[in-house]
């Protein structure tokens, strides 16, 4: 007998099969796609840009800080724009790669210990109107990196961007609606962002550094200084000011050697945007979903996939390249590295599909540049910023904007405000009491405080929450287990995510809960069993 209420035999089939899917059309992804296509592999290259305006307004996938100009509403124009601003796409197209832009990858599904019914490993794709499934033999993830954001009073206002968000608006969309930008962080990322903005005609109100000295390259800093960019070392952010909902200035405050704000050293800098450029974290969502082993490597920006010399992850059919395999200053200093990693992954995928032999791949790979240039660990630098920002801005700053969870509420593990809950017992609880029961777990604290539970899917607060918890627990970020990622990794409307049609069995055999007739029948009378509804309408409404 078989259980027609179970998934057996009716797991969704993919709409399309592609031997190699590459996710992300940055330097690494395009290079991977081109190498594999040149070796004769059929390749699909997907990238979500241009993302639709509503998504951008939610700071998904990057922190755009509401500083998109009106042109982003014109989808057709934006599509042209992202093609035009990424010449490598033309190369990919010429190499025979199927390039799909404006396409989100929102899920990755593979069989595992509790999932055995999938006919093949697949990705969930979507555009603004519909979603579909694509199965693959090999996958290259080149999903890039996200910005680390650290809040301050007023950071909810329009005008708080991340460096990658700003770079996307400047370079891919040419749609940054900011005239005067203050850059936070003087590492390679900060200086690079400042230079980029200047190039695109955006004025730089200054570069702020919490440490006593600039972190980035002296030559770059000198060039910026020559163009009139002021530097504020040993300073931190105190607050953003402006009309309702807008940033019109940022108040900085000097910090002493111990990182304590110096009274009277405040200065107000006029600007309509502030760009957090303190660091990047690899976008490992998809890698996590396919079950690739992730390890915390401080010098690579945190959680990264374990990869071999051919950029193959612990899941043999999945490769990772570019910033999602390690994002740090070194990558910015050596832009070719991401491309090389991509090429290597593309070649390796082609070899594993039998399109190339190992010798050919070795030959095409050429001289081996170090695939991941040395860099220093960033977490203590982020902590330094965060500590001064707490001292300057206090504990009532929202760490999670979506759910309005303040630093204080987070550390006190308080239930959300809308519950209006008070009890002596609750007042006695905080992160400290949880710590007595075992090591810090970010998912558990998220469940209690709701930090990270909002529509931006914790893009703006994941690292801040981790850093704050690490501080409270007297530990470091690497000791806090990776908070889980779940599909959809992009917030998609119900009527986009839904399948246009479903197999008849899926509809007819659908029950809310198992469909065991005795499960909900009243125990006192056997005759009152909650019957299975008859054949054509097997829908059980239940209240488990």
């Amino acid at each position: 007998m078989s259980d027609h209420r179970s998934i057996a035999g009716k797991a969704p089939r993919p709409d399309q099969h592609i031997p190699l899917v590459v996710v992300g059309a940055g330097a690494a992804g395009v290079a991977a796609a081109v190498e594999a296509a040149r070796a004769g592999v059929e390749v699909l290259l997907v990238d979500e840009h241009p993302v639709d305006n509503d998504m951008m307004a939610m700071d998904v996938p990057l922190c755009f800080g509401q500083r998109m100009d009106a042109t982003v509403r014109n989808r057709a124009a934006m599509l042209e724009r992202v093609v035009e601003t990424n010449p490598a796409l033309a190369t990919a197209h010429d190499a025979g790669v199927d390039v799909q832009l404006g396409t989100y990858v929102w899920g990755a599904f593979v069989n595992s210990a509790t999932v055995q019914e999938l006919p093949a490993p697949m990705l969930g794709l979507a555009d603004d109107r519909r979603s579909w499934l694509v199965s693959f033999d090999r996958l290259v993830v080149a999903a890039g990196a996200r910005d680390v954001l650290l809040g301050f009073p007023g950071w909810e206002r329009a005008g708080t961007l991340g460096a990658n968000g700003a770079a996307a608006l400047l370079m891919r969309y040419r749609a940054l609606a900011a005239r005067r930008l203050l850059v936070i962080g003087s590492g390679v990322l900060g200086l690079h962002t400042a230079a980029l903005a200047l190039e695109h005609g955006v004025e730089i109100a200054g570069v702020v550094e919490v440490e006593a000295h600039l972190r980035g390259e002296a030559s770059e800093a000198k060039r910026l200084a020559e163009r009139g960019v002021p530097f504020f070392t040993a300073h931190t952010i105190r607050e953003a000011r402006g009309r309702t909902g807008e940033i019109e200035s940022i108040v900085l405050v000097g910090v002493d050697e111990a990182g304590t704000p110096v009274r009277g050293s405040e200065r107000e800098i006029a600007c309509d945007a502030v760009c957090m450029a303190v660091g990047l974290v690899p976008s490992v969502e998809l890698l996590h979903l396919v079950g690739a082993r992730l390890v915390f490597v401080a010098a690579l920006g945190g959680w990264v996939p374990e990869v071999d010399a051919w950029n193959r992850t612990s899941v043999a059919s999945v490769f990772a390249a570019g910033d999602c395999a390690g994002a740090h200053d070194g990558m910015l200093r050596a832009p070719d590295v991401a491309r090389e990693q991509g090429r290597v992954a593309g070649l390796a995928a082609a070899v594993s599909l039998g399109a190339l032999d190992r010798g050919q791949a070795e030959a095409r790979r050429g001289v081996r540049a170090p695939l991941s240039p040395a860099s220093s660990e960033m977490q203590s630098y982020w902590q330094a910023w965060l500590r001064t920002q707490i001292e300057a801005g206090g504990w009532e700053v929202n760490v999670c904007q979506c759910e309005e969870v303040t630093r204080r509420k987070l550390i006190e593990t308080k239930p959300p405000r809308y519950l209006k809950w008070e009890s002596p017992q609750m007042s006695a609880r905080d992160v400290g009491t949880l710590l007595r029961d075992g090591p810090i777990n970010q998912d558990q604290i998220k469940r209690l405080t709701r930090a990270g539970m909002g529509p931006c899917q914790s893009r703006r607060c994941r690292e801040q929450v981790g850093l704050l918890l690490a501080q409270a627990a007297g530990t470091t970020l690497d000791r806090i287990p990776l908070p889980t990622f779940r599909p959809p990794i992009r917030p998609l409307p119900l009527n986009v995510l839904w399948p246009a049609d479903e197999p008849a069995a899926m509809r007819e055999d659908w029950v809310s809960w198992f469909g065991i007739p005795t499960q909900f029948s009243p125990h006192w009378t056997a005759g009152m069993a909650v019957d299975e509804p008859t054949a054509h309408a097997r829908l059980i409404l239940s209240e488990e």
Partner: protein
Amino acid sequence: MTSGAAVVIVGGGVTGLSAGWWLARAGVDVLVLDKSIVGWEASGRNGGGATHVGSPFGLEEQRLWPQMDELLGYPTEYQPHRIGIALSEPQLALARRWAEIGESRGFRWEPLDRRQLKELVPIVGDEAIGGTYLHFGGHANPQRTVQAYAWALADHGGRILQHTTVTGLVRRGGRVTAVETTRGTFGADVVVVAAGPQTGLFAEMLGVALPLAPARVEMIATEPIPLMGVGGVAGNGLYGRQTLRGNLVYGGGPHEWINVPDMTTPEHANTPLVRNLARRLAELFPGAAHVRVIRAWSGLVENTPDGLPVVERLSNPDNVVIATMSSVGFGLSPAVGRAISELVQHGRCSFADLGALALSRFAGTPPDWRERAGWVARPAEVAAAGGDG
């Protein structure tokens, strides 16, 4: 021996935690052991539904939930009442069935026509043909409830040890005298096994046949939308609720039978089923079809052949209580915890007849019952994505 307690509870889900809380408030020295963090399994991943009036624990479930916040001292987000929505005649018949079961236990309900439905639930569409308003039942927030039990238990002097896997039971003279764990051996006068899908493995250690089939089920959650007057709204083959924050959180549809061969719980993954869930939710609430799905998850539950819990103090060894909730354990947890605490202390339950939940009902269940019922996992292949083509 490391240490121990009068009562050692294996499993920090709602069943074990509620039992531990009831025991601790009765002044009993209790220790809860969990291999992970409290509520990490089904107890923190369910629909939060608390409407099981057909269960032997049903009346106690209904009596206790409205008091739980106060009894525990922490919020569970419990909300009373349920609305059932039907998009078809069979769905309406089923919704009424639920209502009538409640009525036969003395609870009130009334039918709703489309207009009344739309007033109560503005996001329903013209497809809705009618529904039911139950002046009973309700729902709570599972994650908050788990932590409330855990904290309240500790407030009463109970102890919880997380990241501690129980690996064996020490037997001496017809009794279990201790549990062996990855962090030492803990002595006990009484042991409660409330280990979810792993409960079967413990039964096996004791030579008791407990037929259990584990399965994986999925849910989705949307971004918040304005609060409706009653959050406990479901239908169209979905269970779930609108949370007090405003998110629509719903599950349903096909389950996947799985194997849980040892004490390590496998990863809970999602599948493209999340799309089918999205479709049913948009059908149920056309007025919310544009709302964004921001999360999905899955959880593991265990089912007995008749879908009913097993809650029993064994006769041999006579100091062990076994409790598996057969996939309906969240709502029943306040009542079941109380029952377990009574079984531990007095050997019997004063407020419910546990006859229907006795192990003896499976005396004739053949060992290959899962195969016969078709409740089997597909034989594990090398995960396709791990294969080297």
